């Protein structure tokens, strides 16, 4: 069949029309072989524009077309849909970006016009080598795996479980609840932590569609959105669980004090971390090691903040909560809170702080605190000029990522930030997504936060999953994916390591690498690793790219 190619020039309102001489462009293109129509329109992405495009494709029996307009990031999808509507394979077209790359950046109209012609010719050259790619559909599993049974994990599980969606809740320890089950009271409601958890455990109990695994660990994850295969190890037994999405809620840990230098002696008796102190409070007795009641207590904020390089955000409040604990339990104790600056974001939090201060807690701002153990505990500050002897010290150490973050990140192929917490896809636009589709991060696994924020995130992730994996609905995976030519692959496996989606596996029998069609996202990373180009990316094959590049370099 003879090719019939159309070239469409978008004016983009005045954006392109005023900066590029489109008549000249048209003239330069009309005589290219197989081009049957060169047409312009005010705004191809508008309703009329799309209709015009569709009709032109049909009327001219186009087999391929080029559209010179904006960045493909903006409207490639729009025009793919138009192509489909016109009965054409959506991959038989190519965009030339003459707005961002020509109109907007080149002052001189002649120059901009020249460059635009070059770019459109390049797109024309390339589109000739495009191939039809057929859509695929895969069945998505609606079930969800939640890793970590703290408050965040519990909340997400409860929000997701339902008649046609099972949730597998995997907890490493012997009980659900995470940190907060140890807290006698949690701000700002001052409810008991254990009872908050208990309420939810009761609901989990009743919910048939939550399967909990205690003392369990995820040891392998394969697959992709809609079809993950997870191996979970409980005790000595391993089971295979199939789910469509994964939520990571493994929480946090406190920084290891032995890593810290510059705070003096941190390993003496009667120095407790926040978590240790919560436990003491829960057990009902606040005493020193020798069993006596402390007359004075120093609470030190921001331990390790410099070392980790961020403010953990919640510790100011938990530290102030400790003052409340002591005031409630041991009225009359002298309390000194040493802080660097106070982080009190919520409207209720400021009040809480003022209340506590009014009840006689001494808030001291200092940032060079040293603990000395010389005839009793002493807190030195102000460049050692001031000294405060105390009977007990409570530290608020920085939050750090849970121990398993590293291994999970590798297993799930999701990135972590400089401090080691999992990174969200976008801090504002996609705070619970990861770069891997179908894998979400919530609660303190993503970064230090309060219970309230952890719960919000749990609900956000649940919402995303409910909206994207609807039971019975199929998913359309990417079709512009890479493939390996068996005849040319020598089996060096260099490509395997470059794929962040784990989409390439090695076939030992044939001694070649193979791309898993559904796992591949078409990112193109692997292409560069294969010297001999045994791997090619559909729609971005060497020949397609080269044709475009040569034309531009002409």
């Amino acid at each position, binding site marked *: 069949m003879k090719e019939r190619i159309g070239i469409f020039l978008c004016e983009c309102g005045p954006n392109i029309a005023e900066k590029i001489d489109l008549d000249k462009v048209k003239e330069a293109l009309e005589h290219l072989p197989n081009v049957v129509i060169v047409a312009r329109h005010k705004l191809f992405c508008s309703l009329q524009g799309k209709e015009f495009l569709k009709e032109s494709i049909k009327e001219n029996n186009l087999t391929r077309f080029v559209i010179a307009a904006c960045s493909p990031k903006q409207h490639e999808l729009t025009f793919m849909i138009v192509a489909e509507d016109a009965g054409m394979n959506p991959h038989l077209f190519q965009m030339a970006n003459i707005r961002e790359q020509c109109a907007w950046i080149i002052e001189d109209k002649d120059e901009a016009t020249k460059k635009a012609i070059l770019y459109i010719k390049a797109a024309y050259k390339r589109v000739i080598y495009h191939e039809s790619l057929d859509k695929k559909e895969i069945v998505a599993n609606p079930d969800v795996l939640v890793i970590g049974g703290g408050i965040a994990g519990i909340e997400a599980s409860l929000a997701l479980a339902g008649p046609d969606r099972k949730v597998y809740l995997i907890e490493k320890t012997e009980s659900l609840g995470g940190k907060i089950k140890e807290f006698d009271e949690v701000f700002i409601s001052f409810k008991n932590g254990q009872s908050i958890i208990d309420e939810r455990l009761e609901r989990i109990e009743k919910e048939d569609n939550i399967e909990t695994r205690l003392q369990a660990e995820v040891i392998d994850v394969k697959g992709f959105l809609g079809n993950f295969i997870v191996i979970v190890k409980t005790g000595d037994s391993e089971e295979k669980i199939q789910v469509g999405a994964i939520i990571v809620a493994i929480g946090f840990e406190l920084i290891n004090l032995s890593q810290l230098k510059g705070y003096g002696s941190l390993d003496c008796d009667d120095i407790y971390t926040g978590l240790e102190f919560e436990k003491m409070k829960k057990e009902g007795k606040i005493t020193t090691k020798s069993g006596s009641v402390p007359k004075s207590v120093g609470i030190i904020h921001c331990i390790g903040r410099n070392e980790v390089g961020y403010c953990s955000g919640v510790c100011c409040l938990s530290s102030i909560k400790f003052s409340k604990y002591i005031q409630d339990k041991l009225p009359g104790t002298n309390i000194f809170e040493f802080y660097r600056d106070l982080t009190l974001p919520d409207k209720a939090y400021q009040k809480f702080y003022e209340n506590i201060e009014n009840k006689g807690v001494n808030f001291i701002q200092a940032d060079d605190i040293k603990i000395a153990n010389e005839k009793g505990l002493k807190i030195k500050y102000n460049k050692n000029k001031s000294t405060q002897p105390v009977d007990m010290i409570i530290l608020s150490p920085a939050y750090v990522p849970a121990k398993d973050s590293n291994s999970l*990140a*590798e297993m799930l*192929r999701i*990135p*972590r*930030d400089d401090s080691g917490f999992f*990174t969200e*896809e976008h801090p504002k636009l996609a705070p619970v997504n990861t*770069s891997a589709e179908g894998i979400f991060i919530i609660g303190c696994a993503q970064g230090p936060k309060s219970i309230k924020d952890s719960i919000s995130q749990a609900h956000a992730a649940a919402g995303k999953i409910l909206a994207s994996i609807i039971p019975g609905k199929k998913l359309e995976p990417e079709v512009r994916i890479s493939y390996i030519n068996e*005849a*040319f*692959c*020598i*089996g*060096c*496996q*260099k490509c395997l*390591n*470059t794929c*962040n989606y784990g989409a390439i596996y090695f076939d030992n029998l044939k*001694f070649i690498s193979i791309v898993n069609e559904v796992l591949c996202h078409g990112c193109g*990373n692997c292409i560069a*690793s294969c*010297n*001999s*180009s*045994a791997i*090619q990316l559909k729609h971005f094959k*060497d*020949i397609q790219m*080269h044709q475009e590049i*040569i034309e531009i370099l*002409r």
Partner: protein
Amino acid sequence: MDGVILKAQNNDFNKGIKSFLLSGLKNGVFDSFILSMQVPAKDSYAWILTYDEGLVKSSTPISPIMTVQGARALKSLRTGTPTQKIAVVMRPCEMRAVIELSKLNQINLNDLILISYDCPGTLPIKNYLEDPEKGEEVFNKILLDWDDKNIRETCKLCDKVSVQEEKTFQSDLHITTLGIEQNNFAIISNSEKGIEILNELKLEIKNLSSRDEPVKKIIETRRKNRENSRKELIPQLIGLDALSEFFSKCINCKVCRSVCPICYCRQCYFSSEKVKYSMEDYLLQASTRGNMKFLPSLLFQVGRMTHMSLSCVNCGACEDACPMDIKVGQAFSYVGDNVQKLFDYLPGRSFEEPLPLSVYREEEFKEIEN
């Protein structure tokens, strides 16, 4: 360094090595061998895999020419070896290429025992072929006096000829002749496996400090040679014009790539049809420049450099084979040295050191994502 001292009557190192290998065969530490052997016509050498005592006896472990770079020979066993303890005697540069290919999953080291030796260099194939008998004579002399007058240019610049405290290449065992008493040679373990083997053979380990000086001296000479020759070479390689001039004679036959151990691809990109142009494309290119040279050899040369110079072991196989006598090995090894420095990487230095560009690092992923 320590090692075991063995006899080599009349300084016939090859004979000594062979009796060591055969004693290993008897003791079961080796079950077969890959050795260099003269071809029946006695005008060249080939690699032979054998467990036959007779063949071992007629082999020449240390041979005067490098016809097939050893790593290329081993690569043909990549789908599996027939026995489990194959002793392979090869030059240091061949060992290094073997290590590189193992990282690229082209050689499986499990079944191999790598034995390297103090390498005085090899003769240019062309010279040897002109008069093989004379070649033998010349080389036998070189084996004793290490005179570098007649060896390949690339060998004159090679400083990885023997093991030292500072590790420059990996093997399991290393045969050393430098600084060892007349009529003797020594074997040094160069890996865990090597230590085990020497233990198994129950040979007496002695101090070999006598070789320190001679080894150091030869390495220094080679480095000096390199420095001097690079002074001339570098200006010929810097800049596109210089480079085009350097490769101007190249007929794009790609023999250099065919014999290079590191070019392991099934189908070289540069001889593939991945990128095809039509005459019109060529015509357009010709019309912008007035002419269009066939086939553009610089693309191939520079492309090959980007593909493999990180692992180039300066073995000189390419230069030895180039029909146009282009100093292609020296050019690649110079570029290789620089790239390797950049990544703080030395090809073939150790079994474990991963190829710099092939390891997945989380930070990199982050960069991609941002």
